[in-house]
């Protein structure tokens, strides 16, 4: 297990390193010089040159990358060109919206998917199964931002139950939670449809195993065999999908945050791109990608802990 862990840690470090280099190179391709962007069109060339020097933009690219990387290791993601504040702090601020949103959506999608998947697997091939699986096909086809607009139309505009957008901050926990409900539902439903389908096929596969037949033979009802034996064994593929969904939810939140004007990480990336605040873009994207890589690493590790055969 220790050797496995060390190997996985090395590959984790390599992935993070390559990811950071890739992000840095793509951002370096973004046209427009941040220094001239900040000073406006009327600036003197000498002023721009001085600012470029202050910002370290005159250094060769590999050196700029190493500077950035060195800073990251010390917890410093640089300073925002437009807001003059540390990028790390800005990202932490925005995470207070994005992380709860992603977690709420993940919990919601699991809560919706579990009963649906179990219901469909228990009635495989019958009318109930066909109807529910048809509904999940529609769920998968829903663009979440469009679904979000419909939710706003119904629950904010017509029923006036929930806010249509904006975020009051965590000083008002009730209002803050309320403003995350519609975005979380919009994010969760299409993901729940995928999860329900995966759970159904995983359950159907385990239901065909000998130990289920044994359980039924010793008198367990179909429902109990499903809940007590099949569900637990079907959770492994479900865990994989959940790990992948976390990244979808963090990234999918970019568009949803724009629909609801939520001050999350996604909106930060967006605003920073339009303001040519590239150091912020770099930092925020890196945090997102690193979160995804880390979650997948943890999911992998949890398998190995459960199933010794995977520790090769």
């Amino acid at each position, binding site marked *: 297990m220790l050797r496995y862990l060390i190997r996985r840690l090395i590959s984790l470090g390599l992935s993070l390193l390559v990811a950071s280099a890739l992000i840095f190179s793509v951002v370096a391709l973004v046209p427009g010089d941040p220094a001239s962007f900040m000073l406006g069109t009327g600036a003197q060339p000498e002023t721009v040159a001085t600012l470029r020097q202050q910002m370290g933009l005159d250094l060769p690219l590999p050196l700029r990358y190493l500077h950035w990387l060195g800073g990251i290791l010390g917890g410093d993601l640089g300073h925002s060109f437009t807001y003059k504040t540390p990028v790390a702090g800005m990202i932490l601020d925005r995470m207070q919206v994005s992380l709860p949103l992603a977690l709420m959506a993940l919990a919601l999608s699991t809560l919706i998917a579990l009963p649906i998947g179990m219901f469909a697997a228990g009635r495989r091939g019958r009318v109930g199964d066909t109807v529910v699986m048809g509904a999940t096909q529609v769920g998968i086809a829903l663009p979440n931002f469009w679904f979000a607009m419909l939710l706003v139309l119904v629950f904010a505009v017509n029923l006036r139950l929930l806010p249509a957008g904006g975020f009051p901050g965590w000083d008002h926990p009730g209002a803050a939670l309320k403003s995350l409900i519609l975005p979380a539902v919009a994010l969760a439903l299409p993901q729940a449809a995928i999860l329900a389908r995966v759970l159904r096929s995983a359950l159907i596969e385990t239901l065909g195993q000998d130990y289920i037949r044994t359980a039924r033979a010793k008198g367990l009802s179909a429902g109990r065999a499903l809940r007590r034996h099949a569900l637990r064994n079907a959770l492994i593929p479900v865990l994989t999908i959940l790990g992948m969904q976390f990244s979808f939810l963090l990234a*999918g939140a970019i568009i949803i945050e724009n629909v609801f004007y939520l001050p999350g990480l996604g909106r930060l990336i967006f605003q920073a791109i339009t303001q040519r605040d590239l150091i912020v873009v770099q930092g925020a994207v890196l945090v997102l990608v690193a979160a995804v890589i880390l979650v997948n690493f943890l999911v992998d590790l949890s398998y190995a802990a459960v199933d010794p055969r995977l520790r090769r």
Partner: protein
Amino acid sequence: MRVSLILGALLSGLALVAAAVSFFWTPADVTQLAIAQKLLPPSAEHWFGTDHFGRDMLSMIMVGARTSIAVALVAVGIGMGFGVPLGLVAAARSGSWLDETIMRGNDLVFAFPSLVIAILITAALGPSATNAIIAIGIFNIPVFARVTRGAALPLWTLDYVRAAQVAGKGRTRISLQHILPNVASLLIVQGTIQFSLGILAEAGLSYVGLGAQPPTPSWGRMLAEAQTMVALAPHVAVIPGLAIVVTVLGLNLLGDGLRDALDPRLRRSP
């Protein structure tokens, strides 16, 4: 399940026909603005109503279908064009450093949240339909590489492939003559799925302003423009969304149906 095949073909066919017909006929001219007739609800004259510039929504949807289909189709082409050869090579040299490099590269691309990178790429290259294609296409490459390798690996242990090796055929010729035809059906199924994902991705990118630029109509941008008017005229938001849902649903059903039809082994278990 013949039902999903037929239903899927019908639903996804709607968008294809609409796009094809739009090249020589639309109910109204989409470049013609008629502010006096703006935001009209669906009627006999305008089946899908009109938008905030008074343009006929049905015509906009038809022309918008072209953008969605073109972007998603070319993105699938990029994914197959690069991914399939990579997968074939990885399978032919399985266990070698080449295989290892290709597969680790795949894992890395998978780790990136595709939407974030698509946004970054379109921001770097400038927003346009072409750059949306590139951004979506890049993420199709590892999908096809993985599917191809996964399907090709077991084929390399089969007797007829062994026989071809013994007879002196090179790995490249075996890959092209024996492996590729046998993984083709799986690639068609995956292609359908990636096609539907591409339509969703294009809509998302256009929605945030990084896809096709005005005046080219696109379903995603129609939704973005509708956002501020959704309370006044719900149809401007509902109709483009329905177009996306119907097309994506159709393609997914088609993919399911094709998989069942092309792979008889799957027919036993529903």
